[in-house]
C-alpha cells in the first residue's frame, strides 16, 4: 500500500523537535523556578540530615550532661547549648527533625495509598460502591480531627505510630475526595472510551490510563499536606498529645522553651526558627510543583 506523500520539512505539523514527556516538561518548569528549586535542595538536605541523625548528632537525644544545664550558645562541646536537663540542643533539634519528617511522610504516604484505593474505586466503579465509600468519607470529614487525635492518643498511648495515624486519618479524606473528582473528570475523557473500544479491561483503564493523568493534582496537594502534617505534629506535641518524651519533637521543645524565655531564649528561638524555615521550604516546593503542573495556556 502506498503511503501518503511525505510532507515538506517546514510544515510537518510537529511543534518542537524534541520529544518531551509530561514529567520532563513539569521538571523543566520546576527547575526554572529558582525559589522552588532552592527550597527543594534545602528540603533534601533536611531529609538526609533526618535519615543520618545518629551519625550527625554528637549526642543521643536523651543523653544528659549534668555539668552543663541551660548552657548558652557556643558552649564548648554544645554548639547550640543545652536545655534544663543538660541535653544537647543541636542533637535534639536533629532528632526532632527526624520525628517531624517521619510522622509527616509516614502519615501522608499512608493516607495517599488509602485515598487512591478509595477514591479510585469510588470514582471508577461508581453507583452503590461510590455512595458507600463517599458516605464513610463524609462522616470522617465531619469529625473534628483534633478530637480524633485525642481519642487515638488516649487509647494507643503517645507513640510515634499513634501520632502518625492521628494525622493521617484527617488527611486521607480530602485526598480521597480529590482522587474521586479527578477520576470522574478523566473517566469522561475520550481516550478512556478509546481504550475501552480497543478492548482494555477496567483494571488496565484505571491503573494505566486514569491514575497517571489524575496524579498531578494529587502530587500538588500531597506536597502541601507535608508541611501541614509537620505543623500538626508540632501542634499535637505542644498540646501534650505528641510523641512520648524523651523522644524530641519541635512542638514540645517550643513549649518547654517558652518557660525559660528570659533565662535561655535560644531554647525557644532555635526550634521555632527551624520549624518555620522547614514549613516555608516545603510550602515553596509545593508551590513550585503546583506551577509546574499548571499547564493552563500551554496545552491545547
Amino acid at each position: 500500500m502506498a503511503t501518503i506523500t511525505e510532507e515538506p520539512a517546514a510544515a510537518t505539523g510537529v511543534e518542537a523537535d524534541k520529544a518531551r514527556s509530561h514529567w520532563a516538561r513539569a521538571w523543566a518548569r520546576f527547575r526554572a523556578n529558582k525559589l522552588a528549586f532552592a527550597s527543594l535542595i534545602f528540603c533534601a538536605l533536611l531529609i538526609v540530615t533526618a535519615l543520618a541523625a545518629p551519625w550527625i548528632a554528637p549526642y543521643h537525644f536523651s543523653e544528659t550532661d549534668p555539668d552543663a544545664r541551660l548552657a548558652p550558645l557556643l558552649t564548648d562541646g554544645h554548639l547550640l547549648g543545652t536545655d534544663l536537663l543538660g541535653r544537647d540542643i543541636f542533637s535534639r533539634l536533629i532528632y526532632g527533625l527526624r520525628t517531624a519528617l517521619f510522622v509527616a511522610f509516614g502519615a501522608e504516604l499512608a493516607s495517599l495509598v488509602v485515598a487512591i484505593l478509595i477514591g479510585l474505586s469510588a470514582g471508577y466503579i461508581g453507583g452503590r460502591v461510590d455512595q458507600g465509600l463517599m458516605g464513610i468519607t463524609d462522616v470522617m470529614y465531619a469529625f473534628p480531627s483534633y478530637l480524633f487525635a485525642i481519642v487515638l492518643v488516649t487509647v494507643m498511648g503517645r507513640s510515634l505510630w499513634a501520632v502518625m495515624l492521628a494525622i493521617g486519618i484527617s488527611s486521607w479524606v480530602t485526598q480521597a475526595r480529590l482522587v474521586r473528582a479527578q477520576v470522574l473528570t478523566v473517566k469522561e475523557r475520550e481516550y478512556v472510551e478509546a481504550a475501552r473500544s480497543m478492548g482494555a479491561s477496567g483494571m488496565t483503564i484505571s491503573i494505566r490510563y486514569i491514575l497517571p493523568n489524575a496524579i498531578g493534582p494529587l502530587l500538588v496537594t500531597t506536597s502541601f499536606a507535608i508541611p501541614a502534617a509537620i505543623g500538626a505534629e508540632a501542634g499535637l506535641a505542644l498540646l501534650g498529645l505528641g510523641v512520648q518524651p524523651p523522644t524530641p519533637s519541635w512542638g514540645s521543645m517550643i513549649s518547654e522553651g517558652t518557660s525559660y524565655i528570659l533565662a535561655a531564649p535560644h531554647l525557644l528561638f532555635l526550634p521555632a526558627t527551624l520549624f518555620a524555615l522547614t514549613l516555608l521550604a516545603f510550602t515553596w516546593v509545593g508551590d513550585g510543583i503546583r506551577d509546574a503542573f499548571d499547564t493552563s495556556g500551554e496545552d491545547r
Partner: protein
Amino acid sequence: MADVTVRPDGAGSGPGTDTEPVDGRLIGVDHVDKVFSTRAGDVHAVRDVSLSVRRGETLGLVGESGSGKSTMARLMMGLMAPTDGTVTFDGVDLSTVRHGDMRRLRAQMQMVFQNPYGSLLPHYSVSANVAEPLRLHKRGDKRSRRQRAIELLTMVGVNPRFADHYPRQFSGGQQQRVAIARALALEPKLLMCDEPTSSLDVSIQAQVLALLDELRAGLGLTLVFISHNLAVVERFADRVAVMCLGQVVEIAPTEILFDSPRHPYTQQLLAAVLPVSKDPLPAPATPWQPEAGDLPLREVAPGHYVRDCTT
C-alpha cells in the same frame, strides 16, 4: 495524493431487515432501542432502528445534534448495551458475548473519534499510543510492537522521526493520523469513524479523508462514517442513513439519496446546505417539524427506504 471517488454500490438491498443475506452483513442492527435514564426523566436516544452494514461498504450516518447517531456508533461497537433489540457483529449477537470474548471481538472493530487529541493517551508517545492495542491484546513483544507501530505511522503519513514525540506536540491533522494508525494496529474488519474530520481545519480535513479513502480500498475495510457534514458523507459513503430524533427516516444508496431525497427531513437538510460553487443559492426550505412517531419505514425503490410521516 489520490482523489476521493465514489465506489460502486455494494450488492444486495434492504436496510437490514430480515431480507438481508446474513453472510453479506458485518453488522446487523435489529429493532434497537436505547433509553437513558436521567434525573430529568428518560431520554429515548435511539428508537426502533434497524439497519445493516455490509462487508466492504461504507455506510454514512447523518443527522443533527441529538439525532442519536453517536449513540448508534456506541451500540454498534458494543460499548453500550441496547435497551431493546439486538446488535450482531459478524453473525454474533453482542448481548450474548462473554466479557473475555468481547475483548477479542473488539480487536475486529476499532474506532476513530472526533477529537484526536482527546482520544490519544497524553502521557504516552505516539508510537506507544499506536502500539497500545497490540499490548492490550498481547500481540508480539515490546520490540516487535514498536516496529509495527512505526510501520503503521509511516503508512498514515506520520514521519517516524517523530515516533517518540507526545501527542500534544502534533497538529490536529497529524494527531488524527496517529489515531487512525492506532485503530488499524489490530487489523480490524470495521472502522467506526465518529465525525473524524469535523474538528480539523478545511485543508487538513481533505487530507484525512484522502487517507481514509486510500486505506479502506487498500485494506478492504468496512466503514461506518458518522458525520453532520453532508458533503463529506456524499463523497465518502456507499449508502447513507439519515437519522432524526433517534429514528432512521431514510436509507438509500448515496446517489439516490442526494439526487432524489424522499423524506421531508432529508429534503430540509439538503436544502439547508450552502453551496461553495453552485448556483443558484437554495431557496429557504419549508420548515418541517421533526416528529417521533411509530410510522413504518417503507421501501419506495430497490434499496431506498423512507419512513412515513404525517405531513
